[in-house]
């Protein structure tokens, strides 16, 4: 397993508030890395710094480096549009576009220049299959994405992210709005996807992190407290803060 993404002394501030403090860690290729920690600890900010989504927030300031395959994504001249193709994102609430199922998935490839239906059709089919949604929607691709259930909409969003052939998939609490069955499908999907993609998931659900992830990072007040193989972190954490968080002895 090689390192796919590396944060080096990464800090992110919004105005005077420092949300991420001097985080350094390497995320390995083709594994699922879970980022856990209490609300407001900087989990979402950290993963949004991986594809420079924080740049869109006024007053955001990032220092340090994020290396994608060894290249600093914050270096002058780095192609941010291409970065966001390579590092896709799925958000907490399913957010399909007000378009058909087909057009949701085809949206990204079209933006990147693939216009012909003959080229788009296989991309849409493959992406929906990878997102384990094809069997449920193949006969109604022109239907509105809003006709789908919450779990299906989230898988559609995953298909949409996959359609532009990313290398890393960032998932920010992707199951928090879903019922247990839909959650189980997304979790199974994550495990399937890691064969081809590097997956980073932010979750409040420690059991979910334990179920799906290979590595776990624990953040507290913007600092990376512990990072290691999930079994080790959840069974034998080395930091007292991690132990207290995992056992509910916080505060």
């Amino acid at each position, binding site marked *: 397993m090689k390192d796919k993404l590396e944060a080096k002394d990464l800090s992110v501030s919004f105005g005077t508030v420092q949300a991420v403090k001097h985080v350094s860690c390497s995320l390995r290729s083709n594994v699922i890395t879970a980022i856990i920690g209490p609300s407001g600890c900087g989990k979402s900010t950290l993963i949004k710094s991986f594809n420079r989504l924080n740049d869109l927030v006024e007053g955001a300031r990032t220092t340090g480096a994020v290396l994608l395959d060894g290249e600093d994504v914050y270096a002058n001249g780095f192609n941010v549009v291409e970065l966001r193709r390579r590092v896709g994102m799925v958000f907490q609430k399913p957010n399909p576009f007000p378009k058909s199922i087909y057009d949701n998935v085809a949206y990204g490839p079209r933006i990147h220049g693939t216009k012909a239906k003959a080229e788009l059709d296989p991309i849409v089919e493959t992406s929906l299959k990878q997102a384990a949604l094809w069997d449920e929607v193949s006969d109604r691709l022109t239907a509105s994405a809003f006709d789908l259930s919450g779990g299906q909409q989230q898988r559609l969003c995953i298909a949409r992210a996959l359609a532009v052939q990313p290398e890393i998939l960032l998932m920010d609490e992707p199951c928090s709005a879903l019922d247990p069955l839909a959650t189980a499908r997304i979790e199974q999907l994550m495990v399937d996807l890691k064969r081809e993609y590097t997956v980073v998931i932010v979750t409040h659900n420690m059991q979910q992190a334990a179920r799906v992830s290979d590595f776990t990072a624990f953040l507290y007040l913007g600092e990376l407290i512990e990072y290691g193989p999930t079994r080790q972190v959840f*069974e*034998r954490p080395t930091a007292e803060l991690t*132990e207290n968080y995992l*056992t*509910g*002895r916080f505060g």
Partner: protein
Amino acid sequence: MPRLIDLGLEKLTSMIVDMAGLAQKAVMNAITAYQQQDGMSSVKILHLSEQLRLLREETSGLAIEILARYQPLASDLRFIKSCIDIAYDLARFGRYAYDIALTPDWLGDLSHCDFTVPLEMAQKAVAMITKSMTAFRTRDAALAKTLPLDDDIIDQEYKDVVIRLLQNGEIPRECAIAVTLLVRHIERIADHACYIADAVVYFVEGERLGLH
């Protein structure tokens, strides 16, 4: 603020302590019965052994319930795993005590046999049970780590006894068999006291003693 899981963990602890009391009683009774040639003891010890078996099932049931309800992690998870293991070890003490008590029933009158060394070993094994349970109650990993040294002594004594019996052809056959069985059961009791110590070190420190 106490956590919901704490109630379950306290109950689990209390069940293990209760089991330890029964297990020590069973082993002590079995050894006393050997000393006193009490033929009725095996029935009483069978009853204790059965109680231990049932308590082990209850302990496992409670442990599973806590896992299902609270999905614990870190030291809580390790403690529950250790309690499941320790409950098994304590139930084994009951079984070995019963096996010890049964031997006079099988072999008949053993009043002419010399049990001095095995009974000294038995006292050491009982002391190991006490020590392992003290380590459990006080979460004392350092104390638990001394158990393998005690076990080494019992192991050596076990080998010495068996070799002496092999070399001394004048010992009556029933005595040789009775002593061999007794030291074997004692040696296993000492092993299980070590396993308890291992479980204590695991839940306190997250490491294993590396027993073989």
